[in-house]
């Protein structure tokens, strides 16, 4: 135990060390594990598995769009099932689960200097319920009528009517049930992450010394806990409409000559509930990415993150503002047109803290000592992609500009850039960065660089030209782009090009998966701190960290997470747990 003098301003340990409840069997160590690090890997592996399904679905839909009429098995019904499952899997079951369940579980306890999450048993349950949600979702592929084809937004009335695949079969019921399970599982994990950050920090780790990764995941989790209930109630209500014949979202309807037994419900109520969840959801995915990429840039540019306090407040500000912008998804939904003034204003205001984050990332590069490692390359690619996708958000957020562009391929291009490709580039950067900590070995450099260039440039070539199809007026969610007077021959060629790029980029992900598996045994030995980073996860006595993370004594934190290239220090980084002073502190307090 390190002696702490009161002069250091750090309170003494309040609780004596206790014997940890270490697992005693293979089952409790690797399967029903309560160790956040194992749970993190379980979450990540499951999310990656279901993400591969979504990748294949995207290939199938691109086959149809790029080469219409060539593949008979892709009927309109099948096409709508593909886009629906692709969207839902990517947003909820891959990105949300990976950032919060995967990175949140792995990094929060290590980065705040805790031995584990504060409620390990509930944390374990969280994963198993998530797995159940995924299995229910997958089961819809094998159910009569197949999965739902209502689009990932599941707008009623069509979501539960017979003109939509799965609407009057099992598809929609399984989808809604799976979402309900996911939210229950997430809530268990989410409460854990929040309480661990608030209560589980080690001595000296003030909130303003937390790495931005933790700030990003923490804020996103708080938001998710507030936003998911809206989706939860919407799912329950739609399930009641579908199964018991209630009319929450169902007005009087004449379906193909037949009067349905519903009356008085409001389809637009569902849209409000959905987007009250759905917009914060964008930032639930984006904020962890913002936090992680800040740490990647700082570490690999050997420079403190520029404007740390501004970065924290931007994260919190974006999180708060994101709850008052939801109806910008509904400008042409038929809601009261005066809402447009309010929501366009709030939406464009959110661009300001977002822009500040971008400036601070590039200003961190400025006068840095930039090591072009693979995590840094992915971070740079993230900035390019995110700036591009964020700026097209200024088109869609500005209510009247959205009118011609909404429901076109412009929207598809925009949200793939900003919340698809950009966060996934951060996921890749983060995996290349933390893989050595989780396995003790480095990922293969050559394969990594190949994966990076194909993914970054390929994804840009897919989604940048796609905006122009939308500008032309090509609608999204069209299983067939035939007989359309606005589409020129060359626009069809562009679609074929986009499809070919999608196959190439998808192939590069197989190389990445191979690298992940191959390097576990054959990667170069990494050592405990290969990137010479400051944060606590790199200072663990063992790599990979053992159960309990930090050995006998928890670390004590003396400084913020960004003491890189401090003048007067011998090394160009000072770990957070290293005592001592190097001239007057310039750490933002």
């Amino acid at each position, binding site marked *: 135990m390190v002696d702490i003098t009161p002069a250091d301003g750090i309170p003494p340990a309040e609780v004596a060390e206790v014997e940890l409840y270490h697992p005693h069997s293979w089952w409790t160590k690797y399967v029903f594990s309560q160790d956040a690090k194992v749970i993190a890997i379980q979450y990540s592996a499951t999310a990656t598995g279901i993400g591969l399904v979504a990748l294949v679905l995207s290939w199938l839909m691109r086959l149809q769009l790029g080469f219409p009429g060539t593949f008979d098995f892709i009927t309109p019904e099948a096409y709508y099932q593909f886009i629906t499952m692709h969207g839902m899997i990517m947003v909820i079951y891959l990105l949300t689960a990976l950032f919060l369940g995967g990175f949140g579980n792995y990094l929060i306890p290590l980065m705040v200097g805790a031995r584990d999450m504060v409620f390990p048993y509930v944390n374990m349950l969280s994963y198993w319920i998530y797995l159940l949600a995924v299995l229910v979702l997958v089961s819809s592929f094998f159910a009569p009528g197949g999965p739902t084809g209502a689009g990932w937004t599941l707008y009623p009335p069509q979501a539960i009517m017979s003109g939509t695949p799965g609407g009057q079969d099992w598809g929609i019921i399984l989808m809604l049930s799976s979402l309900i399970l996911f939210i229950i599982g997430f809530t268990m994990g989410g409460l854990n992450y929040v309480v661990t950050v608030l209560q589980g920090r080690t001595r000296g780790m003030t909130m303003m010394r937390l790495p931005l990764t933790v700030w990003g995941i923490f804020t996103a989790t708080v938001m998710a806990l507030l936003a998911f209930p809206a989706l939860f109630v919407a799912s329950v209500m739609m399930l009641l409409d579908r199964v018991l014949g209630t009319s929450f979202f169902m007005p009087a309807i004449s379906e193909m000559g037949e009067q349905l037994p519903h009356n008085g419900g409001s389809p637009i109520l569902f849209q409000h509930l959905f987007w009250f969840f759905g917009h914060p959801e964008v930032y639930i995915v984006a904020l962890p990415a913002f936090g992680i990429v800040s740490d990647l840039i700082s570490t690999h540019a050997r420079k403190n993150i520029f404007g740390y306090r501004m970065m924290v407040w931007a994260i919190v500000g974006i999180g708060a503002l994101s709850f008052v912008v939801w109806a910008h998804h509904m400008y042409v939904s038929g809601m009261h047109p005066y809402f447009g003034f309010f929501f*366009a204003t709030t939406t464009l205001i959110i661009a300001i803290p977002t822009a500040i984050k971008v400036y601070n990332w590039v200003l961190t590069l400025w006068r*840095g000592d930039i090591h072009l490692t693979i995590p840094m390359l992915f971070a740079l690619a993230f900035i390019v992609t995110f700036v591009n996708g964020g700026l097209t958000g200024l088109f869609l957020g500005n209510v009247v500009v959205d009118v011609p562009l909404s429901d076109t391929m412009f929207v598809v291009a925009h949200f793939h850039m900003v919340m698809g490709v950009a966060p996934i580039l951060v996921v890749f950067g983060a995996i290349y960065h933390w893989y050595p900590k989780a396995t003790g070995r480095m990922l293969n450099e050559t394969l990594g660089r190949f994966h990076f260039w194909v993914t970054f440039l390929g994804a840009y070539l897919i989604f940048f030209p796609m905006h122009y199809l939308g500008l032309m007026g090509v609608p999204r969610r069209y299983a067939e782009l035939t007989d359309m007077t606005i589409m020129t021959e060359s626009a069809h060629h562009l679609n074929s090009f986009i499809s070919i790029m999608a196959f190439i980029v998808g192939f590069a992900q197989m190389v990445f998966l191979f690298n992940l598996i191959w390097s576990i045994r054959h990667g170069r030995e990494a050592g405990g701190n290969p990137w010479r980073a400051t944060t606590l996860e790199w200072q663990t006595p063992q790599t990979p960290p053992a159960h309990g993370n930090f050995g006998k004594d928890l670390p004590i934190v003396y400084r913020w997470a960004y003491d890189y290239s401090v003048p007067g220090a011998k090394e160009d980084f000072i770990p957070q747990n290293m005592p001592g002073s190097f001239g007057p502190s310039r750490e933002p307090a």
Partner: protein
Amino acid sequence: MAVALVLVLIVVGSVLFHLLSPWWWTPIASNWAYIDNTIIITFWITGFVFAAVVLFMAYCVFRFRHREGNRAAYEPENKRLESWLTIVTAVGVTALLVPGLFVWSRFVHVPSDATDVEVVGQQWQWSFRLPGKDGKLGTSDTRDVTADNPLGVIASDPNGQDDVVVEAADLHLPVGKPVKMLLRSIDVLHDFYVPEFRAKMDMIPGSVTYFWFTPTKTGTFQVLCAELCGQGHPLMHGVVMVDTQQDYVAWLGQQQTFAQLSAPQQTGSADQAPGKTTASGLKIAARLETVGSR
């Protein structure tokens, strides 16, 4: 070095693509050139920011790349710079928002001389209703929809008797006259979208939504459904023909009113309308075939 070069190439390539590619919006055929202008302003501002940020990154990557003996500067904050950047961004955002809201205000306020035109969506076809000589559309209710009253016009409303009903056929509009499109659906969400008019709005069963525009060019324009409405969604095309006043009047003279259509001797003629739902509970497959063959 290579990385900096690629970043520069991305900026140059994107700008060249924007300027040279053949993919651009369709020639406008309505009064909403304001919207196109707002898009152009947005392209300029966002294009400038994109180029500035990425080129600055390219410069940093080139100038501050790691070389032996390099050491990064230590500068946690720079309040002046941060405030300046915030102010400049706020100004840029305002420059986008103000014209946008100004045009939106025009978009939602319908001129008083606009004529009502009702559009009714159903899986997967478009129908239309125009007010008769009284200038008023009769009220409607989805529960009144039957094979003989496909739009659900309330028969007891005298205003509805002279309404012109155009079922599952082309809509004609006179050029140069503002129209208020009253949008209605009898089953699921649809969205009436003509790319050349730039305007669109969802149609919600149980509600009447609207937008307005003035057609400025004669010609034939394709209507697309822009809100996912089931598996027939991509087939839900329609046609709007913008006519000279003379042609329009001639077309209008050939149309039938609600009273004429609902008179007993007229029921037999219903089969003439293509895509007509003659029996309740029509199977989806048959429905799709009907829609697809048009």
